[in-house]
């Protein structure tokens, strides 16, 4: 199963082989998680998005026609879900709708980082990225951390390469200023 291409795994899954889907999840779970984590700034929200993305994949994989790579398709789902999740969260916050279930669950994720140093790094990164507008953050994450080419980002987001470069420029400039302010 590990040696099979994405195409073969999708075909297997569409025939009813759940093990193939498990393999697809293993291949992409870290990428899905880390994009969601950087977009949302906390583990709980990232986990919600990961679950949503996997549900979408499970139910829509039969409709995937390989017009793009599986990675591109998965990424498109992740960025859409992340942006929608953030919009919903902002709305809930705006109308002050408290979700008591979430507060209870957050405690179970307190030790998600496996050591203190990692926790500090992640906290710092989360705080910096949360200062960027969502759309800028999305492009910055894909370019700076995932090292996708502008052509790939353009294919995923549907935006022009010129626009993406401008977004990256403004995002990087802002983060640089924030880090300098922190260090002073």
């Amino acid at each position, binding site marked *: 199963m590990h040696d099979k291409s994405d195409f073969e795994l999708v075909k297997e899954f569409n025939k009813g082989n759940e093990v193939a889907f498990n393999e697809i999840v293993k291949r992409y779970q870290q990428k899905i998680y880390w994009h969601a984590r950087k977009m949302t700034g906390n583990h709980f929200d990232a986990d919600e998005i990961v679950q949503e993305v996997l549900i979408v994949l499970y139910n829509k994989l039969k409709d995937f026609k390989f017009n793009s790579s599986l990675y591109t398709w998965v990424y498109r789902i992740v960025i859409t879900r992340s942006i929608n999740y953030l919009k919903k969260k902002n709305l809930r916050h705006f109308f002050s709708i408290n979700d008591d279930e979430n507060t209870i669950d957050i405690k179970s994720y307190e030790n*998600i980082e496996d050591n203190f140093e990692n926790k500090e790094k992640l906290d710092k990164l989360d705080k910096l990225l949360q200062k960027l507008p969502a759309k800028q953050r999305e492009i910055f994450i894909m370019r700076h951390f995932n090292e996708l080419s502008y052509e790939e980002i353009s294919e995923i987001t549907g935006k022009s390469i010129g626009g993406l470069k401008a977004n990256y420029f403004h995002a990087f400039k802002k983060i640089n200023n924030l880090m300098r302010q922190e260090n002073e």
Partner: protein
Amino acid sequence: MNDESKVIRYLDGQMSDEEKKSFEDELLSSPKLKKLYDEYSLTFFELKNLNEVKINENYFSNLYARFREKNISYKKKKFYYKFAYSLPVLILAVILLLINPFNPSNNEKTSVLSDSIATNYSNENIYKTENTNILKENNTINEKIINEENIEKYYPSYDNEDVKDIYNIINNLSDEELNLLYNELANKEYL
């Protein structure tokens, strides 16, 4: 192009080989550009370092099992939503069937029937009886109609096939319908 833009393009790998060469030469000759470059490259590499973080691997090893649980409850929710949407539609359909405006109402039915009866009762043959004056009797029309013996006595035209059909229909009416029929007939001019 301003200095900031040059530095970011260089660090981001957007420059061609020629542009890179030109920028590197400028770095050597411009302290201002050098300072800006040092600042941005520090940020650039610090961010890369912050990205090198691992989380507890148990999270990923349990992920698939948790997803399966969530998928089952998602499918249940989807079913409940579909049910919730279809139930009011079903209830509405049942209500509409019960009060179907396209079926003739009881009033309409008895009105049509009373018109038929009135036409036949107005037949001159009916009124030509020796022993009774229907108009003066206090019995209800439905009693007269249902009693076949009386029909033969008072309504010689009972032999008329059309009238026989009407009596057959009336025999099958419910009490409520008969009452409605009576009221309709009572309001007709011939009574």
